[in-house]
């Protein structure tokens, strides 16, 4: 069965492995080049927060952005591809070609055929996702000492930790289930691409509720000093302590800004702060990184188990 699984799915396995290898080479090359640059150009004490390190930080930032733009699409596109090319054909193609009647009338029982394929390919998909996460996690710190964005930036968040593995597995199982639904590959592929996009948007909306947001009251500024925090909502707090969305009767003149300038808004905010208003921010601090990672991975694992159960049930119930 292991050989059968390999022989039937080796194209997907090899293409995915080649892609990850290519990405690995790219990331390694970029990290080596950046390290050399740092070694040659960094003033003493850099990289760091010192003013003298500014030029270095900009140069590293440019290098980072150039490489990131090459694979920044991966959090959304990679799971969709995994679902479409690993999941959808697993059963869809067998039904489509009628080969399920060959595969499921041998000595190996249908449940075993399905169990071996799901577990081997599922494990391969998880391994691929973890490898991606590992490579990205090793590569980013070379450029990003002191400025992290693994939590606040949802794209990066979905590419590190256990997220890629969870998403890849979910997409794979979703594609498999779609294959039993349509019994054809192409509609299953379409469903899995749409399904991954919808799931990702839904979980993005849902992620604010993974934990009770932290609350802090700012005075003098409306900006949280942690750039990696996830902002949930904000409100003004009147001097009386009442929280309001929009201050009314504050006596502060509010003029509309023109163009890209925000000086009128800033003046209005400064006036409010001067009158004893405070700015309440609800947010998730970056320290919740792993809590969010595991919550989302847990949701995806549960969904994968449910979809996998559905696929197995549909397959065993009506194998013909």
């Amino acid at each position, binding site marked *: 069965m292991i050989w059968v699984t390999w022989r039937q799915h080796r194209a997907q396995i090899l293409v995915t492995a080649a892609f990850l290898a290519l990405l690995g080479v790219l990331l390694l090359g970029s990290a080596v080049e950046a390290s050399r640059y740092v070694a040659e150009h960094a003033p003493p004490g850099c990289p760091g927060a010192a003013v003298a390190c500014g030029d270095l930080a900009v140069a590293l930032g440019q290098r980072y952005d150039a490489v990131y733009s090459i694979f920044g699409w991966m959090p959304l596109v990679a799971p969709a591809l995994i679902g479409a090319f690993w999941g959808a054909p697993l059963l869809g193609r067998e039904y489509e070609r009628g*080969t399920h*009647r060959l595969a499921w009338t041998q*000595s190996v029982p249908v449940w075993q055929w399905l169990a071996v394929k799901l577990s081997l390919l599922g494990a391969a998909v998880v391994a691929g996702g973890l490898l991606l996460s590992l490579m990205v996690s090793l590569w980013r710190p070379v450029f990003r000492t002191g400025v992290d964005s693994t939590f606040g930036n949802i794209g990066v968040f979905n590419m590190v930790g256990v997220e890629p593995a969870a998403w890849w597995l979910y997409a794979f199982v979703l594609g498999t289930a779609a294959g039993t639904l349509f019994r054809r590959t192409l509609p299953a592929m379409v469903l899995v691409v749409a399904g991954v996009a919808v799931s990702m948007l839904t979980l993005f909306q849902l992620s604010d509720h993974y934990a009770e947001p932290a609350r802090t009251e700012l005075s003098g500024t409306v900006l949280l000093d942690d750039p990696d925090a996830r902002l949930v909502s904000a409100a003004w707090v009147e001097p009386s302590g009442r929280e309001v969305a929009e201050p009314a009767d504050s006596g502060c003149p509010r003029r509309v800004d023109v163009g890209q300038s925000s000086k009128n808004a800033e003046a209005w905010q400064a006036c409010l702060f001067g009158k004893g208003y405070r700015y309440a921010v609800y947010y998730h601090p970056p320290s919740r990184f792993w809590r969010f990672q595991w919550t989302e991975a847990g949701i995806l694992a549960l969904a994968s188990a449910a979809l996998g159960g559905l696929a197995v049930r549909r397959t065993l119930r009506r194998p013909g």
Partner: protein
Amino acid sequence: MSPALEATGLGVRYRRTWALRDCSLSVPTGRVAALVGPNGAGKTTLMHAAVGLLRPALGSVRVAGEAAFVAQDKPLYESFTVAEMLAFGRRMNTRWDDAAAADRLARLGIPLKRKVSGLSGGQQAQVAVTLALACRPDLLVLDEPLANLDPLARHDVMRSIMAEMAGQELTVLLSSHVVSDLEETCDWLVVLNGGRLQVSGGIEELLDGHLVLTGPDAASAAGAQVVGASRAGRQVSMLVRGAPPLDPRWQARRPGLEELVMGYLRSPESAALPGLTGVGA
């Protein structure tokens, strides 16, 4: 002798429609059974139930020992080479005779290195049959094995299956809607029509037990069990079961297999089943 295949009160339903109902039959070991009937009669459904691709809604179907199945259109993995198809069979089965399979393909002149998609329809059918035979099954179930094959390939496939029969305790159940393909090779007949079983029995005994009568349409059929009758002008031709009628104007002869099958298919209410004494039961 215990039957190789036995169905009892078998009923299979697709959503609301019954594809097969109240089907009870048995095929004795060592027979080559022909499963005939028009399209949609339930032939494929019966076979899928026999090999476990379907769960019957009612009744049961039992195979003595292992069954091997060649589905309609002889599905194979097109991107596999013939050798890889053999490896597939080897790894998917507990009983597997690799040498016999390789030997059989060599005799048929099918190269092991060729991709399945590069084989002719006849060769693909032979590979599918070879895979099924290499499992050393007790029952070989073939769904329309001769469909889409040219006459030469039909003959080759049939002959090579029969050659395998000689060496082992094998029972074969094969379906076709072309009766003439089966005449030389089969010795058991199962007729399905509209999801119901019409005929099940040994071909020789069935042919011996029926008569084709021709006579004027005024002749009386009293005393005979008429399966079906057809008129051409003033001449009547009918298939009867058992003894001929008393009226001496009838001319009687033994039916051919095709006549027997057609006679029953034209009269879906008639049945010739073991344990049934009357026609039209």
